[in-house]
């Protein structure tokens, strides 16, 4: 089995691409840079396809397939191998990362065509793919952390890609520092993991964790501690409350970066990590509750902010935060497969939304304000139709990818083994809000009368290198959820079934845990006979569908039927409107509560006090003391030989007296 023995090839190819483009590409022509940049990811994708083909033939006993290449760190019992593993969860992530990554690379050849630093962009993008693949292939938590930090680095580099723009630089730093807060939790979590299990290998950890009892809700034990610390890392990386503030600002980066890193892959690393650590999380009910709570709150809270944003990318950014909240809600209520399912479908439709938004921005010559758009539907039809499909998918319109995954999460939240009606209703409301702000985006951008200056802006459809990825992603946004479609009529959810081994292997209670999530909404229906038609009827008339349609209708009413309505509503609820428009003043709050005090302490205590006062004061004080005492002493050096002679005599006499005195005492 060639590729499975050489899993490193999958990650080495993008790294090689990054190295070649980064070191040599500066003076190369664009086609050559394209060939290296896109080619390396394409080959990596093919390697993944081959690896998955071989993986499919493995006997179940050999899964997860672990390949250890060399020992990286040894210190006492602390041993870290460079080892990669592949299981069903990894397969899903590999497909998402390499396929969406490939499409974004192709798209970038069109989108970035006129940019300075073209080779640099592709080098960073390849480097990102390398780190992301390391993250998902890692067989131990330390190697995973390497990928985790690496993608953060690439995120920083790519947000600040236009490094002459002050706002881009600040956004890059904000992203890096904010996620670093979460990484602190992750790091401590890794230490606690090692302290508890004396190993960092997933398999070893999981086997031991499986032998531990489920902890109490409160007070809890070490597994809860580990889970919460790891989840802090996920909060930072996946932009959840309270560390989500970096993601909207990250939109300063080029749009393909927003699509790949800040929608499809990197921000879902937290979701992947929690799903990967499911044997630990499952035994920490309090941590699970927190995961679900944070997820549900974020899903709702970010969606409300998205309602009033006018920058097309900002809407999508808050939407991403909100959708990530859904994924954590799914994980938190124990529906790991549903969370990962939503991760995958979200990668398709949100990646598509961003790329399509990039196409719109491209057509608008860089303008991102929806207030300046309107009526683009006929001018850029491919962009419109693909973006429309993605909107249907994210809004949860039946038949499209997002419907299936969101439905599964809400089912689990509403009627799963860890159901919580508060979370369920937060999720339902957020689904309605999602539908509203997405259709608002579509109506403002593509419908109505043009609000741009038609003499200055010449709307044009993007080149094929940009539209082809859009079409591919539109197909996936439609069909990507169909794995679960038979479930609607009471059949099997193939996605759930595929991931089953990963989440059942160390599950607390294998049969019940997974069975319940498979049963889904049907469980709520109770003893009523489960005929396929009834199942379908239930799914299509459930709250998620109703709120999605209501959101669509309100958006249509506000932005097509009577465009004055939003203004009137805003005036009648001025206070709330201002609050939401300013994103609940969270940035201002953080600035006042964290940044300013820190700045004050740094300036007045550490800079003026410690550095200038204590450290500089000590050094300068010693110097000043020496200079002043030296000034006094140098008066002795009068140059007058007689005064020297006098000192010699005084010294000699003094010395003699001293010696005689000592001698006398000794005697």
């Amino acid at each position, binding site marked *: 089995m060639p590729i499975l023995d050489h899993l490193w090839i999958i990650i080495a190819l993008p790294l090689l691409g990054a190295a070649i483009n980064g070191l040599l590409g500066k003076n190369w022509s664009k086609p050559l840079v394209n060939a290296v940049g896109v080619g390396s990811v394409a080959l990596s994708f093919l390697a993944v396809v081959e690896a998955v083909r071989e993986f499919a033939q493995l006997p179940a006993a050999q899964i997860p397939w672990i390949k250890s290449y060399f020992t990286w760190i040894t210190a006492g019992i602390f041993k870290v191998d460079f080892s990669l593993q592949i299981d069903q969860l990894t397969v899903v992530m590999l497909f998402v990362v390499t396929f969406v990554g490939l499409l974004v690379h192709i798209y970038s050849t069109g989108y970035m065509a006129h940019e300075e630093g073209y080779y640099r962009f592709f080098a960073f993008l390849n480097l990102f793919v390398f780190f992301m693949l390391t993250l998902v292939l890692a067989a131990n938590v330390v190697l995973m952390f390497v990928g985790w930090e690496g993608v953060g680095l690439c995120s920083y580099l790519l947000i600040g890609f236009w490094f002459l723009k002050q706002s881009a630089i600040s956004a890059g730093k904000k992203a890096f520092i904010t996620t670093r807060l979460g990484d602190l939790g992750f790091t401590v979590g890794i230490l606690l993991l090692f302290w508890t299990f004396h190993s960092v290998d997933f398999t070893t950890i999981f086997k031991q964790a499986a032998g531990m009892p489920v902890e109490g809700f409160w007070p809890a034990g070490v597994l809860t501690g580990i889970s919460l610390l790891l989840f802090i890392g996920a909060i930072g990386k996946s932009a959840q409350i309270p560390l989500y503030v970096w993601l909207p600002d990250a939109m300063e980066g080029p749009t393909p970066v927003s699509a790949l890193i800040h929608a499809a892959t990197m921000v879902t690393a937290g979701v992947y990590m929690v799903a990967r650590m499911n044997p630990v999380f499952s035994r920490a009910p309090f941590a699970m509750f927190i995961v679900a709570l944070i997820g549900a709150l974020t899903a709702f809270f970010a969606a409300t902010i998205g309602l009033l944003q006018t920058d097309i990318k900002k809407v999508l950014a808050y939407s991403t935060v909100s959708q990530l909240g859904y994924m954590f809600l799914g994980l938190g209520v124990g529906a790991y497969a549903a969370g990962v399912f939503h991760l995958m479908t979200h990668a398709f439709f949100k990646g598509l939304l961003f790329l399509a938004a990039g196409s719109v921005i491209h057509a608008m010559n860089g303008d991102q304000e929806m207030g300046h758009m309107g009526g683009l539907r006929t001018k850029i039809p491919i962009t419109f139709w693909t973006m429309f499909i993605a909107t249907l998918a994210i809004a949860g319109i039946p038949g499209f990818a997002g419907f299936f995954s969101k439905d599964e999460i809400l089912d689990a939240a509403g009627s799963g083994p860890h159901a919580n009606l508060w979370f369920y209703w937060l999720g339902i409301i957020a689904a309605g809000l999602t539908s509203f702000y997405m259709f608002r985006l579509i109506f403002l951008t593509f419908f109505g009368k043009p609000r741009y200056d038609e003499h200055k802006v010449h709307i044009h459809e993007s080149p094929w290198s940009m539209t082809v990825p859009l079409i591919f992603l539109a197909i996936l946004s439609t069909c990507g959820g169909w794995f679960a479609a038979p479930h609607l009529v009471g059949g099997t959810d193939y996605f759930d079934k595929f991931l089953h081994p990963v989440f059942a292997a160390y599950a607390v209670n294998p049969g019940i845990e997974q069975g319940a999530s498979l049963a889904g909404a049907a469980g709520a229906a109770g003893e009523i006979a489960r005929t396929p038609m009834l199942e379908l009827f239930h799914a299509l008339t459930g709250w998620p569908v109703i709120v999605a349609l209501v959101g669509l209708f309100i958006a249509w009413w506000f932005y097509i039927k009577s465009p004055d309505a939003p203004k009137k509503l805003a005036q009648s609820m001025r206070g709330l409107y201002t609050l939401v428009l300013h994103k609940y003043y969270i940035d201002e709050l953080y600035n006042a509560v964290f940044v300013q005090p820190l700045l004050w302490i740094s300036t007045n205590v550490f800079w003026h006090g410690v550095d200038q006062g204590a450290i500089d004061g000590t050094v300068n004080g010693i110097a000043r003391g020496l200079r002043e005492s030296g000034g006094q002493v140098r008066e002795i050096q*009068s*140059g*007058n030989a*007689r005064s020297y*002679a*006098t000192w010699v*005599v005084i010294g000699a006499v003094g010395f003699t007296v001293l010696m005689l005195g000592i001698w006398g005492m000794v005697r």
Partner: protein
Amino acid sequence: MSVVPISYYLVLSAILFGLGVIAFVFKRNIITIFMAIELMLNAVNLAFVAFARAHNQLDGLVFVFFVIVVAAAEAAVGLAIVITVYQNRQTLNIERIDTLKF
């Protein structure tokens, strides 16, 4: 014939040395200061010789020879310096030769 006690020599040596020191400190003329140094050296020589005689050992005498040699060399070099100083400054007043500072 009674032997002169060693204390007499030592007292004389101390008096001579003290005079030399006083002259060294208070006199202004370089030549005089030079003479004061010679006086101190010879006071020491006297002490050495007295101890050598009292202890019936040669070590003190050997030191005396060394001191005489050094004094002779010093006289040669020192007087040469004095002449040069006078040629440059037209004075031998030690208080006016004070540029060797700072």
